[in-house]
């Protein structure tokens, strides 16, 4: 397949994830829309093209792993895994209902395809690194991907993990920073800024750092992952410059962490995302 065609498929997949994530959160009426929307394109690249996974055998030993350390992006993971065939999409509509297998934050004990449990920020970073180490000890030729938020990088544990991964030369590890510039209380720059920048920090910790100018562009993300695969002896950090709430009519302008819009706003957002999906397909 030509790269252009592949990228078109990934754009379609990304928008399908966006539509389904919005609809599942919308079925409840409130939730973490912002941080789910910003990582949709990266998830599409991973599950649509890059990662080796088997939806029929979610714990397949030789699989690639994906850890959503910014666990509140659960709805985006759930839509992605459903569309990939891990379970019917209807299941994800039980989001946050009593006894659901689709809790707001990702949980390895509940959802097929979720590799590690996250929610307390910073922790998915360490456990993903532990998984990368375990796979290396066993001599497997696979990769572990982990998503951290730029706000999440306030957590000291992210940096404890960063020094460990570099020290142990975990080149089977790729960390995406969802650099959407917003955290719960407002702009990252205002709440807790990152000195010389997230990328500069990872660089100082001994990582290979790749800056993706548009973190919501599937082709740029794909190229960055291929470059990460070529890097040996170091873990790679891919800084995705994204928009919080990307592609959601009520969330993108505000960049809000969680949203509780009215029914009319939900209908408008879902209709707009579906129209965009039709447009991407028609390209």
């Amino acid at each position, binding site marked *: 397949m030509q790269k252009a065609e592949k990228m078109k498929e990934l754009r379609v997949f990304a928008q399908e994830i966006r539509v389904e994530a919005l609809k599942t959160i919308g079925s409840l009426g409130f939730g973490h829309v912002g941080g789910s929307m910003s990582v949709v394109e990266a998830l599409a690249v991973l599950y649509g093209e890059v990662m080796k996974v088997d939806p029929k055998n979610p714990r397949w030993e030789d699989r690639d792993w994906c850890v959503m350390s910014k666990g509140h992006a659960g709805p985006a993971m759930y839509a992605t895994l459903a569309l990939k065939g891990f379970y019917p999409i209807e299941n994800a509509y039980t989001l946050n209902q009593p006894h659901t297998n689709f809790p707001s934050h990702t949980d390895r004990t509940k959802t097929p395809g979720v590799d590690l449990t996250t929610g307390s920020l910073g922790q998915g970073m360490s456990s993903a690194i532990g998984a990368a*180490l*375990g796979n290396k000890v066993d001599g497997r030729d696979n990769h572990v991907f982990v998503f951290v938020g730029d706000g999440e990088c306030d957590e000291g544990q992210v940096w404890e993990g960063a020094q460990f991964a570099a020290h142990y030369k975990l080149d089977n590890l790729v960390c995406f920073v969802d650099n959407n510039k917003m955290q719960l209380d407002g702009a990252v720059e205002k709440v807790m800024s990152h000195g010389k920048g997230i990328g500069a920090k990872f660089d100082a910790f001994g990582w290979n750092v790749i800056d993706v100018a548009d973190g919501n562009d599937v082709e740029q993300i794909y190229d960055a992952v291929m470059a990460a695969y070529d890097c040996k002896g170091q873990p790679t950090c891919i800084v995705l410059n994204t928009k919080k709430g990307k592609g959601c009519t009520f969330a993108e302008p505000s960049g809000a962490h969680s949203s509780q819009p009215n029914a009319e706003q939900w209908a408008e957002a879902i209709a707009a995302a579906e129209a965009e999906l039709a447009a991407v397909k028609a390209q």
Partner: protein
Amino acid sequence: MSFTLIGKHEKDSRANRDGYVNAMLEMMEADPTIMHVDCDLEGCINTGKLAKAFPERTINAGIAEANAMGIGAGLCATGKNVWVHSFGCFASRRAFDQAFMSCAYAKLPVHVLGSDPGVCAAYNGGTHMPFEDCALYLSVPGSVVVDPADMAQTYALTKAITASGKFSYMRLIRKGFTTVYADGSEFELGKGVVLKEGKDVTIIASGIMVDEALKAEETLAAEGISAKVIDMHTWKPLDEELILASAKETGCVVTAENHNVTCGLGSAITRVLAKNCPVPVEMVGVEDRFGQVGAESFLREEYGLTAAHIVEAAKAAIARK
């Protein structure tokens, strides 16, 4: 379960930490999934031996306990059977959210090892003296919490925990210890050990307090008081059957722990007794205080962790019958 009680109150010439290390050396040789993660304390508990024998499976995470616990979780998710070690204060207080969420909540049964329990932290002082480590781990649903008394028991319980598949916390006396059991003694998780039979009072102890309880039994016997002595090495799951049977036999109970009594072994035993067999209970342990620096002998006296305190508590419990 077969054990041989020595109980002569004699200091052992060996370091207790080697109970853990020797068990691990044997198990790591036989089972390639077993790993040890340390936090720049290999030199303190002699796990440098593991690093030498099994360099790929002995991981030094540096002075970063929160990350170390997460590394343990991730390794466990790839099929490894993992111990994570730091001093008890840091293995509990500092990395508790990680132990709780990344490990236990995620059903990744990591084994946490906390060295220098309670007053054993001695010259490292109050900052390093955990009287609350077991309390934290008792609060984790489904956890196993263990406080071994000596090297033979440390060795046996290290093996039992490793084979258990359970999220667990084990205290580790690091250096000097008093021999309680003969080498080769066997113990079962969740099963208390009856060391002396008696009819007037039941003394239930763990860790460094087991030998104190045995000494107290001798003093009481000399005064005509018959004490039953139980080593309750496993705080959770608690041997409720043995506790209730003993309380019924003797009519009162004394608990003895190197830990804060507000949230430890005594509290756990009292919860069982209050519901099923409300007999008088006296607790020997740390009375809701912080630790402090000093020789272990001074600290044992300072916090009331001696045979004399157990004797006094036994008489008080008997008087309340």
